C-alpha cells in the first residue's frame, strides 16, 4: 500500500502510549465517575483503536483514497446497525 518506511522510534512511541492508555483505562474504572465511567472507557478504547489504525496499519501514510473510503464506510455501517437498533430498543418504554 505505502512504500513509506516509518522510523522504528515512532512505532515504539505508539506502543508505549498504547500500554499507558491500557493501564489508565483499567485504573480509572475503579474511580466512581457515575455514568462517565463508560464514556471514559470507550473514549480511551477509541483513541487506542485510532492509533493502531493510523500508525500500525499505515492509514495515515497511505495515498490510496479508496482504502480510506472503505474504512469510513465500514464504520458508518456499524454506526447504522448500532444507532438505529438502539433507537428502537431505547424508545420502546415510551409507547
Amino acid at each position, binding site marked *: 500500500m505505502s512504500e513509506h518506511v516509518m522510523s522504528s522510534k515512532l*512505532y515504539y512511541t505508539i*506502543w508505549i502510549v498504547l500500554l499507558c492508555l491500557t493501564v489508565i*483505562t483499567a485504573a480509572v*474504572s475503579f*474511580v466512581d465517575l457515575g455514568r462517565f465511567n463508560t464514556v471514559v472507557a470507550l473514549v480511551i478504547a477509541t483513541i487506542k483503536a485510532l492509533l493502531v489504525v493510523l500508525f500500525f496499519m499505515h492509514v495515515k501514510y497511505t495515498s490510496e483514497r479508496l*482504502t480510506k473510503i472503505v474504512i469510513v464506510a465500514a*464504520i458508518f455501517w456499524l454506526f447504522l*446497525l*448500532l444507532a438505529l437498533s438502539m433507537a428502537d430498543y431505547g424508545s420502546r418504554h415510551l409507547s
Partner: protein
Amino acid sequence: MSDSPVAVEQHGPEHLHHFVDAEQQRDAAALGMWLFLATEIMFFGGMFLAYLVYRYWYYNEFAAGSRSLDIYLGTINTAVLICSSLTVALGVRAAQMGNRKLLVILLLLTIVFGFAFLGIKGVEWYQKYEEHHIPGRSFSADDLIRDYPQIHIDPRPEQIYFSLYFAMTGLHAVHMIIGVGIFVFLTYYAWKGRYTSKYYTPIEIGGLYWHFVDIVWIYLFPLLYLIDRKPLR
C-alpha cells in the same frame, strides 16, 4: 515457457502480468484485505449489538458478571496483544527494508505473543468453569448474589452476560488461532526468503488482519471487564 509464440514479459511475484505495475498490485491486495475487514466489522458488529441491547436491559447482571472477571489477567492480555501489534508493525518495516533475519524473529515473537494471549484466555475460561459461570445446566449465580448483596441479580439474565462473554471472547479467540496459523505460514516463507523489499504484500496484509483482531480486543476489554468496577455503596 521460452518457446511460447507470444513474448511474455517475465516479472517476479511483486508484479503479476495482469497488473499494470507493482504499485497497483500492492494497492489491490491491500484494498481486498480492507474490504474483508469491513465484513469482519459487521460480523463482530452483530455481537456488539446483542451486547448493547442486553446490557441496556440487564445492567445489574452485566455489572456483576463484569466484576467477576479477572481484571489483572484481562489487562495483561491487552498488553500482550499490544506488544504483538508492535512486533507485527516492526516486522512489516523489517520486510520493507529487506531484513530477512529480523523479519523472521519478529514474526516468531508475534506467534509467541499470540500463544501467550490464548494461554491466558484459557486460564480465565477455566476459572469460569470452576466458578460454574459457564451458561447451561451447571450455571450458578449464587456466588455473585452472595458477593454483591448491594446489586439485585437475576440468575437468568446473568447467563446472558456469560453467554455473550464466551461468544465474544470465543469468536475473538478463533480469529487469534487463525491469525497464529497465518503467521506460521508467513514465518515459513519469510525463512525461505520469499519476501523481499520489493515484495512483502503477504506480510503487510497479514499484519492488517492481526491489527484488526487487536482492535476488536481493545473494545472487548472495556466492554466486558470494565463495566462497573467502582466501589459498591
